[in-house]
């Protein structure tokens, strides 16, 4: 199927409103072949509910729209409401704090249901990430990232929120092409053994959000989007996905496809996360401050 020919897509599939977010989660887990009811109930029981303010800047991303490489209604870009997003990815140091407060998510504490055996493999011990404190935490499952963000008073960004922010770059088309070539080079040559500190890539969106490219790949709430199931992951997918023939769209397709191939237990040395916050949730947090 040529996705460009897809004329009408139900709007609720493109942009989950906060009310349908739980449903999207459920579908994601279902898609990744989990026992949906069981996993969700267990996660809810297992997660800590206490909200806690977390260090690092939260930047306001104003409402707007962007073009995804997933199918969209012709002439109608994907709309995204305003939200807050972490300026940088969650670091080993941040994650250590979370583990100290929630030992059930440590390497020896986490149940096999929530992560593979490589979870935090590169850490020395349960509560010792070794020296690289300011580098982004990686080898964390979607479950762990999700729980961290809840603990921090937020949630994982949705796929559309993450992409909307990542693509808010104030550069010319020519610069964008050059940037995308570099990005493809990065996808083909990244050395997961050599993690760089957060904020070190020099890549920043127009709102000040750093390192969405060139440092790690990041979990999003709906990493297996409903629309993604329309696109079987095979040889021709990139061609069908591409929104135009350019390198920018190609790099985006590789990013979307790689993300869709994960399951909620996946952990890799290239995969970390940052958190997002609803506008009202953030206000509530501010009101709690003395």
């Amino acid at each position, binding site marked *: 199927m040529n996705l460009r020919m897809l004329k009408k897509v139900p709007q609720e599939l493109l942009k989950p409103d906060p009310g349908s977010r739980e449903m999207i989660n459920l579908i994601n887990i279902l898609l990744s072949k989990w026992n949906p009811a069981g996993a969700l109930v267990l996660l809810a029981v297992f997660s800590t509910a206490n909200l806690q303010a977390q260090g690092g800047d939260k930047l306001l991303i104003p409402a707007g729209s962007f073009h995804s490489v997933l199918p969209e209604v012709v002439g109608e870009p994907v709309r995204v409401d305003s939200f807050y997003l972490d300026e940088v990815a969650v670091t080993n140091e941040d994650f250590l704090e979370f583990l100290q407060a929630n030992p059930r998510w440590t390497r020896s504490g986490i149940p096999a249901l929530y992560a593979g055996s490589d979870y935090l493999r590169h850490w020395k011990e349960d509560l010792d990430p070794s020296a690289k404190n300011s580098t982004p935490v990686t080898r964390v499952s979607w479950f762990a990232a999700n729980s961290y963000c809840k603990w921090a008073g937020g949630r994982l960004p949705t796929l559309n929120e993450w992409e909307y922010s990542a693509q808010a770059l104030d550069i010319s088309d020519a610069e964008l092409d050059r940037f995308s070539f570099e990005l493809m080079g990065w996808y083909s040559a990244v*050395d997961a053994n050599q993690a760089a500190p957060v904020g070190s890539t020099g890549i920043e969106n127009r709102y000040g959000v750093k390192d969405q490219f060139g440092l790690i790949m990041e979990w999003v709430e709906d990493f297996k989007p409903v629309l993604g199931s329309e696109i079987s992951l095979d*040889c021709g997918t990139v061609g069908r996905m591409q929104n135009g023939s350019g390198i920018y769209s190609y790099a985006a397709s590789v990013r979307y496809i790689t993300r869709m191939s994960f399951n909620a237990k996946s952990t890799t040395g290239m995969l970390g996360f940052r958190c997002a916050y609803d506008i009202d949730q953030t206000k509530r947090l501010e009101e709690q401050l003395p």
Partner: protein
Amino acid sequence: MTLLNKTTAFLIVMAATFFTAQAQSSEYTIDGMTFGMPEAEVYTEDYDGPPVVGEYFTMLPTLKPLEYEGNKHHEVRLDAMVQEIEVADGVRYRAWTFGGTVPGPTLHVKEGDRITFTMKNRSDEPVVITEPGTEGSPFLEQVRDNNFMDAHPAIMPMPHSMDFHAGTVAKDDKWRTISPGETIKFDWVANYPGTYIYHCGTPSVLMHTAMGQHGVVVVSPKDGFETDDQVDREYVVVQSEYYLEKGAGELYQYDFEAAQNVNPSHVVFNGHQTILHDQPLEANEGERVRIHFSNNGPSGTSSFHVIGAIFDRVWMEGHPFNEMRGMQTVLLGASGSAVVEFIVPEEGSYILIDHEFADAEKGATGTLKAGPRQ
């Protein structure tokens, strides 16, 4: 029918529909070929054994002769892993591989054999090809003795999959993509004789294959080729392209633009620009040499020729019914193959070459060194 019965019947029909949709077709045969393999299993395992397991996995250009009568059930493993390798003098990059070399090891089976295949996506672990030992397959011993790519482990976690052209299965089941840390296991039957490429089918498939994820399976015909008892030497030669550019450091990296425009930086035999000159194929005057030749691409064609020889026999795709004689050059598209045989006329050096000279000058040549008549 009471309402209760109707409801029950409805539920049974719904349940039956559901389970039917989930069920895998069972095995059946057509023209002596077996179809309908069980559903693939995807799971996680704490495996740190040899990355290549199977007594008929060998390193290019060798092929292990089949030492069994009738058919065999092969249980093999070929893990996906990242290795920093040399592909030309001074050109190293972090390759995405099956088994640690580019191309990956060659599997030899017989028409009708069943293969139970296991692959772990170990792209997020540093795997040393020859550890913990080399007893898993002849391939591991060959790499230990002749690590001409100077392979070193690297980590680059990516989703991967395996597509055996020698298999006939539903690709959305058997060839499905697994994420780092996952293992996939499935069966296939080598229904057709021939020399078949295998490759990663995960998008971007161009990138995954150009990064090194391909190799060949040789399926020997159950009744053999007409010339089997006359063949003195048997080799496997694979042509493929690299699309590399110098990265920021010492290493090279994938050049997207070159790959899109089919403008390779290197076109090579057996994964390395000079390997078949540094380690030439060997034969003697008057001998019959058989080469299983596969053009693994990902995107180019090959016009395979041996300078100074004429192909006495050519079996396109390696199927004994597809016989041609007296060919100077065999034209192969991407993922095409042929079994070629020639008689070495005199003592001397013979150049294997892609007669598309742009490819030849990017490296697609090799040497066969012939000794005196025995």
